[in-house]
């Protein structure tokens, strides 16, 4: 093949050639050992980069990144760091923060749940840390980390299958997120956090966090938030089933 360029070899490695050109390159590689060796090394480089850095996708995102806000003016790094310590992380990410502790507790739950939904629900390759194929392990692990027995509700009758779950940093400790998906790829998440205040129960509350609808409630020591990009009535139907399963 006389018109083969190095660019073709790179594009071959990166999967950026159309079919006919790819066939031409493959024919050429059959009798060009130097080019074949380059292709092998470059492929290994791509694979090694992904192997080394893909785990970052599954790390908990530091709260300070959710708290990023419109900078009023440039602060030096040390001032940013010191200021961040004094702020309550995460508040203000989706909407304005509230004033009193009671409101903060009540309002923080749906907001945090919506942010966690916004971050992980669109993930194609890494939506969860532990998949539904290891459901027992997932539930045991998250229960252990939260220090409270958890359950992953069964929502197949509502059309949602468990995708899996992950551990997230909450305001005061670890938080669990279970993710479900329906046949159309629509996802909902159940966000479960441990409260350190007096055990109490609340009724369902609803919060619309931009496009994300959230039903949340407090049940004893646990706060629950069910989030999805769907209408209020459909989400309420699922939330009701979740609540009943958790309180048989």
């Amino acid at each position, binding site marked *: 093949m006389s018109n083969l360029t190095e660019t073709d070899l790179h594009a071959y490695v990166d999967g950026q050639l159309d079919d006919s050109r790819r066939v031409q390159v493959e024919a050429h590689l059959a009798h060009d050992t130097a080019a074949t060796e380059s292709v092998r090394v470059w492929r290994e*480089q791509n694979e090694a980069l992904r*192997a080394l850095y893909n785990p970052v996708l599954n790390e908990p995102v530091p709260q300070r990144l959710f708290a*990023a806000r419109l900078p009023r003016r440039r602060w030096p790094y040390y001032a940013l760091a010191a200021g961040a310590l004094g702020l309550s992380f995460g508040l203000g990410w989706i909407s304005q923060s509230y004033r009193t502790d009671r409101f903060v507790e009540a309002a923080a739950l749906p907001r945090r749940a919506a942010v966690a939904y916004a971050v992980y629900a669109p993930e194609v390759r890494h939506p969860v840390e532990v998949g539904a194929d290891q459901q027992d392990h997932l539930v045991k692990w998250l229960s252990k980390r939260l220090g409270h027995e958890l359950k992953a509700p069964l929502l197949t009758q509502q059309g949602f299958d468990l995708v899996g779950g992950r551990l997230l940093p909450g305001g005061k400790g670890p938080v669990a997120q279970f993710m479900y998906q329906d046949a159309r790829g629509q996802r909902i998440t159940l966000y479960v956090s441990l409260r350190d205040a007096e055990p109490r129960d609340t009724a369902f509350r609803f919060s619309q*966090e931009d*496009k994300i609808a959230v039903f949340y409630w407090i049940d004893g020591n646990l706060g629950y938030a069910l989030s999805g990009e769907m209408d209020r009535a459909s989400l309420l139907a699922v939330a009701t089933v979740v609540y009943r399963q958790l309180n048989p």
Partner: protein
Amino acid sequence: MERAEIAAHIPRLRRYARALAGDAHRADDLVQDTLERALTKFHLWRHGSDLRAWMFTIMHNVFVNQLKTRRELPLDDAVEDGLQSGPQSDPLELRDLDTALRCLPVEQREVLLLVGLEQLSYAEASRTLNVPVGTVMSRLSRGRERLRALMSGTAAVTSLKAVK
């Protein structure tokens, strides 16, 4: 919705920043600066265009500006190529890939990561870095060959910092 839209890209921005900057804390500083800049300039983003590519562009600009401020911008391609004939070192292990990346000039490292790690098309990488596709290809070629030499021990692992 802009915050939620931008927030959805945080994990991938962190992956790219980690590979670009190396140190985890510095990488998250880079992500934070990028997010703040993106929120400030969100009205400039054209709806319907690729938000992720737009945010990579912002991160590129923030990163290059930081390097300039810290005077850590590595020597340019031409000077760097002259340095390749240093004393040979031992072959690097796979786990030293991170170290080897630090030895690449920033412009080669960026292209290698946008294409190899983030799997952007050459056209997307060209738009992200605001350079012609031909430049993307030559940086990719030089970057891959230099990385190959570093990993096989035929090039010295030199910390390339501009001394001014």
